[in-house]
């Protein structure tokens, strides 16, 4: 299990847990990010900038601040799953 902030680009990841506060969790649920979704890091902003995350389950992209990405735990899923 790794932090989303440390996850490699372009690999399929499984969202394991969101450890942020209630506000962050609620917001991510509302935007369509839930446990067990398959996600992918598409881009890293420069200078420890935000991450561009694509949800492969629901086909939604969000920009996520680095601090929040540090509170999200993911697993490397084997591709094509």
């Amino acid at each position, binding site marked *: 299990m790794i932090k989303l902030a440390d996850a490699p680009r372009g690999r399929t990841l499984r969202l394991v847990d969101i450890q942020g*506060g*209630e*506000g*962050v*969790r*609620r*917001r*991510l*649920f*509302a*935007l*369509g990010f*839930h*446990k067990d979704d398959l996600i992918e890091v*598409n*881009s*890293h*902003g*420069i*200078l*420890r*900038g*935000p991450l*561009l995350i694509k949800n492969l*389950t*629901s*086909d*939604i*992209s*969000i*920009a*996520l*601040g*680095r*601090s*929040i990405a540090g509170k999200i735990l993911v697993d490397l899923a084997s591709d094509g799953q």
Partner: protein
Amino acid sequence: MGNESPTVIFLGQPNSGKSTLFNAIAGPKALTSNFPGTSYKHTHSEVNIEGRLLNVVDLPGTYSLSPSEPAEKVILSHLFQEKPDLVINVVDASILGRSLELTLELLELGYPMIMALNMVDLAEKKGIQVDPENLEKRLGVRVVPTVAAHGRGLKALLEAAFFCLDNRCPLISPHWSGDVEEEVRRLAERLPEEIIVAGNPRFTAIKLIEAEKTFCVEVLAEADPGLKRDLDLIKKRIEDKRRAPAYEVIAAERHHLALKISEETSRVRRGKRRSWERRVDDVIMHPVLGYLILGLIFLAFFFLIFKIGGPLEGALLGPLARLRAFLSGWLGAGLLFHVADGLLQGIGGGAAIVLPYFVPLLFFMAFLEDLGYLARAGFLLDTFMHRIGLHGKSVSPFILGFGCNVPAVLSTRVLESRRDRTITSLLIPFIPCSARTTIILALVAFYLGPAWALGFYLFNILLVAVIGRILSLFFKDPSPGLILEIPSLKAPSPVNMARKTYLQLKSFVKFAWPLLVGGSIVLSLLQFLGLDKVLNTAFSPLVVHGLGLPEPLGITLVFGFLRKELSLIMMLQALGVEYKNLLTVVTREQILVFTVFVSFFIPCLSTFAILWKETGKKVAFLSVGLSVTVAVAVSLMVRLIF
């Protein structure tokens, strides 16, 4: 009048094409855009469709009925106030799974509803085929496929709407796993009549279970301690059983049901993904290229505006000057001439100096917005916003601020934390809006050259950063960080862009222009009566000794509070010269100092009013104090340097 015609509410998630659909049906009354959460003021219009009067309402986009940002909270209260006869749920077919979560909430709520399954063309391009009949069966509501941008499916949608208005289409609320359902039922049965929302005990019970520990729950605890105890007990039972917070359990129930329905009703053909969009995004969000493109876009932005506005302005000013000369020959120098001259300066100044820059700026802004670039700029600039204590979500209000500060302040409602909203709202008045861009272009670019104007802008942005950095020192609580949806890139529709430009222009003509003309006439009369000298003397310590400007310019600062562009027009009038002869009475340095001072010295009346409304009296006055301080400091600095 509104009592007899049925109320129809458009409701959907941000970027579902809701406002576009609303526009296509109700005419050009609502703004649409491709940034999450832009139609703030809900739009009401009474429309006559096929001989039937409908009271249609466009509410801002919301992800759910359990709001987490202030913009969304407004929606809920409106939804209950309106007591709609019909809800048209606009759904983005290309992200059906998530969109259905709001639909399920609306089914729980139980107002009569039909669904506009929108953007089916985009879904097909992504290789997703949704079966509307099957969806209709699963949800128990009428589903009409539409492509709002091309007007496809509107007729069928209206037919379905009329059908449901006449036949009251009853809804079936979705049901969840037995254990959760049982707890919801238990609470629903126990609720006292007076707290039931929308006549629906089950909906009220669900909302109480998943509500944040907010005001409502606090009030409830005081009014009915027994109920509060039961609610806590029910939540605890759910939490113990599922080992997760109650709100999360409910969200998961909804999510799984939505996903299941979406999987059962749509076919996904892989391989036909919109790979070009991915490739375009890879370039415009690239760590190096992305910033280069961002920079180029903004350079092009101002270059274009200057290239279009400059010649237009030149062409329009000539006839205006001739008309003025003619008037003075015809009317002499009496009262009549002063009134006529004020009128002419106001109308002509608006048409010849403001509009040539304002219109292209609005149009280009609409283009960036509809394209979906604003959210992407938010991603790119997040890092830099962190340096000034904010994050990428504030980028959109700032960029909107280049158009007009008023909608920019309104749009800070997309920020979740009060801290971010306050800092952003305090910084927005320092963003050169189109009125100030007009002044900067007309004075600095025209008399000192485009490079100076660009420098002015860069300095301005630097100044915003410095002030932001200082402000964030005073707000200790941390910013919650960036969570921002990046919508699909969409080809902006020229009709939508033109419509948006037209609407902004209309509000300028309606509200600002009369002020411009009125102020211009008042100034003319003041001059005629010699009263302007009194005001100028009062201001002269600052204007003459502090800023080194000609004394007659004192009065223009008063008018600048009404509208920033008034300062420019008043400047010419106060100095008694025509625009092209300006350099005969002031120096280039004075022009620079004047522009700097006018740009920063005070938020205009409308911005002040909206600041007061949105952030409170304290912040509004703080903003005034801050801007006066900054204006004086910076103009003195400019004066000393040049």
